[in-house]
């Protein structure tokens, strides 16, 4: 495992804590009725977004599924705009027209959260195709879950990426449940999902998605391969969502013991232990980071609360592109 410096340690802990606290705040605001509709929390999976996105440059694209807050935050999206979007307010990233599942930030090449399982994989292929045609150096980091692997679009996209040698990192976040159905009940290849890549001649690896440094190292290696060879790579990160599929899901299909087993691998707790053992951060540093995160979360809630509601002109705007 690679050694990291203090600044990187601080950054990883800050980013993971920011996601954790943001998501916890979302959960509370959902219970208060401030946030409505579907809300899918990323709690437990923070190491993946932070570790993988840390290895990108500005020119790279990120595209993801509907559990997208973590990826958006890790890519640098403004928490104020995200929270206001969840509140359905005018100050939101899409002025309240996207919602939790559809965050976008073009300036960051964050190409969106998509809510039809597997539907954004072909779009990721297109982003890669454009990079290739434009002779640009960027890559596409495409997150998806174990549920998407059973969609035809996954296989169509894997084939196209390999056939056309496109710079796409297929990032499979295997949290082991497609909504409430365990991966073993939905895939005949549940134990070896990453091996689908073999059939398309694509390098692939399975990693521990609860350890941010493992995520960082494997992403770095994969991205180097893509930048060197041009072609796609797949990573399967084993992870777990600590909460239900969405706020509407009490997760009664899981044993408490299973949840406990994964909570013991909490990526933030594990990383805190690591940085202390390796003298990267002190208890005071950690407490400072937590205070910093608290302020960020308080501010975004205040921003969302104070943001005005959109009027109907917003609803009727940007249905079609127009020059004026």
């Amino acid at each position, binding site marked *: 495992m690679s050694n990291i410096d203090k600044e990187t340690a601080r950054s990883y802990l800050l980013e993971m804590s920011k996601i954790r606290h943001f998501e916890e705040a979302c959960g509370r605001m959902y219970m208060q009725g401030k946030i409505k509709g579907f809300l899918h929390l990323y709690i437990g999976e923070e190491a993946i977004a932070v570790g993988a996105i840390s290895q990108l440059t500005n020119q790279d*694209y990120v*595209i993801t599924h509907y559990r997208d807050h973590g990826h958006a935050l890790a890519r640098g999206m403004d928490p104020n705009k995200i929270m206001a979007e969840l509140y359905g307010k005018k100050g939101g*990233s*899409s*002025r309240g*027209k*996207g919602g939790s599942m*559809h965050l*976008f*930030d*073009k300036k960051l090449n964050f*190409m*969106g959260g*998509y809510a*039809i399982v597997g*539907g*954004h*994989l*072909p*779009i*990721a*292929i*297109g*982003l*890669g*195709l*454009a*990079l290739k*045609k*434009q002779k640009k150096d960027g890559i596409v980091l495409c997150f998806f879950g174990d549920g998407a692997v059973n969609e*035809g*679009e996954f296989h*169509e*996209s894997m*084939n*196209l990426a390999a*056939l056309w040698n496109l710079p796409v990192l297929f990032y499979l976040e295997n949290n082991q449940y497609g909504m409430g159905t365990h991966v073993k009940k939905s895939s005949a290849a549940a134990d070896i999902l990453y091996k689908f890549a073999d059939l398309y001649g694509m390098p692939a690896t399975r990693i521990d998605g609860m350890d941010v440094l493992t995520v960082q190292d494997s992403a770095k290696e994969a991205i180097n391969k893509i930048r060197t060879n041009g072609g796609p790579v797949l990573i399967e990160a084993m992870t777990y969502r600590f909460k239900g599929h969405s706020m509407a899901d009490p997760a009664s299909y899981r044993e408490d013991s299973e949840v406990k087993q994964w909570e013991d691998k909490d990526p933030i707790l594990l990383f805190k232990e690591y940085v202390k053992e390796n003298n990267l951060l002190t208890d005071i540093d950690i407490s400072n980071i937590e205070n910093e995160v608290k302020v960020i979360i308080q501010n975004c809630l205040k921003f969302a609360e104070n943001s005005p509601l959109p009027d109907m002109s917003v609803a009727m*705007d*940007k*249905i*079609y*592109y127009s020059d004026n």
Partner: protein
Amino acid sequence: MAELTIRESLNKALREALDNNENVFIMGEDIGMYGGPYAVTKGLLEEYGSEKIMDTPISESGFVGAAIGASMAGMKPIVEIMTINFSLLAMDQIVNHAAKIHYMSDGQLSVPIIIRTVTGAGGRMGATHSQSFEGWYASVPGLKVVSPSNAIDALGLFRSAINENNPVIFVEHSMLYGVKNEIPDQYYETPIGLPKVLEKGNDLTLIAWSGMIPLAKLVSTELNKRNINTEIIDLRSLNPIDFELIFESVKKTNKVVILDEYWETGSFGSYISSVIQEKCFDYLDGPVGVINSLNVPMPYSAELEDKVIPNIDRALSKIKELFGF
């Protein structure tokens, strides 16, 4: 003036697009080596090479999604879906993504793609290869849908479509590729959304598009023999539609019949009919007639297919029933 078929005018339109914009590329099934299932892309691979003319696997969702993604990153893809029946495999990409990304991102991203596809019955191709789904796509906010009936509009609409920064579904009719017209030498565009009066008349308004235009002309010829002068309106675009021209015609003739190759239930023609009845009710002498394909999967046999799709006998008897002509 050169005389071109719809097939040739589209080939010309594609060449223009490739010549004028370095971001344009074309992708689809069998458009290159094979020469295009309807030969619209014939010769393009040889001339422009495989970077610009990309043969794709039979993965409709995959390559339509790829076109969407490429367009979001600054390219201008033209996608051919071999027939509109196969577009159902890409419906997620078209309806859930192409139509909504601009809106959901509040204008941050755009999807400037053209999806060319082939609609219609009449080729004895059976139940799964003879459908007319352009009305479905026309009902989706965020998509634009055009469907030319002649070579002039095919070229003109394509030129407008290529200048669009929105997803355009460009619907071609399988039975019309051989239709020939004189194409003006001077550059022109056909605006998306503007219907056209093909024949002027005072007694009855016939509204149709795409594959139903030849039938509208046939009906008009028959009625002319009885001194009934029909006005034929070619919609040309299904979304958007400038209804003013239609309303003007209805206010003049007071009688309307719509020809629509889709089934009776939930047809696009029924939507046009409902708009006319709401906006022009006081001007109408009778109900707005809509003539559709019968509510059955398309049978293969020529004997049966000709009776299932709207035909001259059914059209004339409907007009007689409604207006006594």
